[in-house]
């Protein structure tokens, strides 16, 4: 009986680590701690040139404040738990993946192609199956935006396989 009780207790304490409040707080504290570490690598101004406080002091104070407030939020969440969020659907991960596709394609192939690919992925996986609409969203509209920015705003887009053809 005792074993069962202990097992239940263990599960309860383990489940604390899987609560969103714990995970979010841990991520914030971890990132803040890493950034806090970096503040110690900032150059130090010699006292004779220093006006007021050192450049690292203000970010350090902010990061300590963020860590302290996050801990406070976490302890409050033990009493008033955060609402349980629904599991994220596949469409979210596909959209996130399309961002990665955009970054990769725009960096190594072409900026315009990156936008076109993202648009077609998002539109298709969000439910659009009509070919004409997919073409409008992925090619015609980005082309209009591209030409608008290029001609009216005088913007020069980064070179790429399609952009180079446009610029001749």
């Amino acid at each position, binding site marked *: 009986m005792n074993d069962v009780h202990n097992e239940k207790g263990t599960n309860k304490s383990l489940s604390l680590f899987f609560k*969103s409040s714990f995970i*979010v707080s841990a991520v*914030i504290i971890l990132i803040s701690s890493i*950034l806090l570490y*970096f*503040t110690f690598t*900032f*150059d130090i*101004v010699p006292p004779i*040139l220093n*006006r*007021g*406080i050192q*450049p690292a002091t*203000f*970010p350090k104070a*902010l*990061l300590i*404040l*963020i860590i302290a407030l996050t801990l*406070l*939020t976490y302890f409050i969440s033990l009493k008033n738990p*955060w*609402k349980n*969020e*629904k599991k*994220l*659907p596949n*469409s*979210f991960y*596909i*959209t*996130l993946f399309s*961002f990665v596709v*955009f*970054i990769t394609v*725009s*960096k190594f192939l072409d*900026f315009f192609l990156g*936008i076109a690919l*993202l*648009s077609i992925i*998002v*539109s298709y996986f*969000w*439910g*659009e199956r009509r070919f004409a*609409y997919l073409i*409008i*969203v*992925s090619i015609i*509209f*980005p082309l209009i*935006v591209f030409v608008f*920015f290029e001609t*009216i*705003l005088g*913007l020069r*887009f*980064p070179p790429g396989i399609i952009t180079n053809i446009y610029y001749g």
Partner: protein
Amino acid sequence: MENLGLIFAPLFSYKLLIVLFFGTIFGLILGVLPGLGPTTGGALILPFTMTLDPLSAIVLLTAIYCAGTYGGAITAILINTPGTPAAAATCLDGYPLAQKGEAGRALGMATVSSVIGGIASVIVLIFFAPLLANLAYEFGQPEYFALAIFGLTMLASIGEGSPIKNLIAGAFGILISTVGKDFMTSIDRFTFGINELTEGIGFIPVVVGLFAISEMLTQSTLINQIFNRVALKAVKLPSIDDYKKTWKTIIRSSGIGSFIGVLPAEGGTVASLIGYAEAKRWSKKPEDFGKGSIEGIAGAEAANNAATGGAMVPTLALGIPGSATTAVILTGLIIHGVRPGPDLFREQPEFLYGIFGSMLIANILFFVLGFFGAKIFARITLVPNKLLWPMIFAVSVCGTYSLNQSIIDVWLMLLFGVIGFFMRRYGFSVVPVIIGLILGELVEGTLRQSLVIFDGNWLMFLQRPIALTFFVLSLIALSFPLIKRKKKNDKV
């Protein structure tokens, strides 16, 4: 006051009238589309404003602000989904009234009360902003530091999210402002050897990322959502009986909205909720609220539009944003090289009064466009998200890239989009991040300069009466949500 005549200047400038017209139409479209709204729309349009002169750019943004705030009511009434957060309270009575077959009457009341609230708030802005700016002449560095701290502590009581989470988000925003070369010593901070970061992180990638891209990710989780749409035949002006029932509510809510708007970091959402609650409290028929009360619509709509002018008061007079959208407008002012504050009132009155006049005209324009075009604008909600959001992405990416022609800015925009999505998912509002980012430089700069003046003695802050007043107000702002929560717990 001798500059009051300048208010009518926009009427004689065809260029400003065209900008106002397009700004109002664009604002209505943005307001109608759930998930967009004037804040995200303003962020999207910011890069385009670089082609305009500063006055036209700010007039465009303020027209979007006024019309977008009203536009949210159209969707709230017809599909029970607020086009903007500020229209959330309008759903409570607008949709039930529309379901009873009175969508036109509900929209008519929303339009009239929005216009009255909007115009009342511009009058508050015209008279109150110069007074506040005059007061700011007394401010030195320590006072500005205390004021910025007060602005930040007001984040604790901002409408959505827990007070502590809002403060964390605000601190995060200030932290972003520290990236790049330290302005006093030119020492690199958080640049990680990336040259593009030495100039700091720009406003546009953060604003577009946190609002537009994070919303796109949010919409990706809602693609199966179905809206129940109520048909709209025509918008009707409220009857004499409706006016008799609601005129006191409209006046009260206009006052509440203007006052709430003036408070730093508050805005239309808080104003509409309080306006609605007060309308119910003073009503002879509180039992009708939530079932299609015309007073409920008037209370919420007059208040949220009244907050627009109110929120512009601290934005223009002190450079402290009064709401999320005014934070975007303030960003627009900064990227156009205009620094809000008392000097702006003294040196560029035609600029300021041009904004005031434009806001008045925008309110009249959205009345006309809303009245005759609500049926058409309502149809915009038929554009499916699967087509709309990829298009918004294309505009966001090109707009963000256009400012510095930097691909790093585009990547930062995406990064902040992802951060914004998770922040919102776990109850952190993204608005404090923007306000923190805007106020960050002011907070750090004034703190360090004050310490130079005080020779490093922190206690000297307490010897400045204005600064001390702001610190006391900050303490009150911080403790207010705790008192509110305790009262709520005691009630339970």
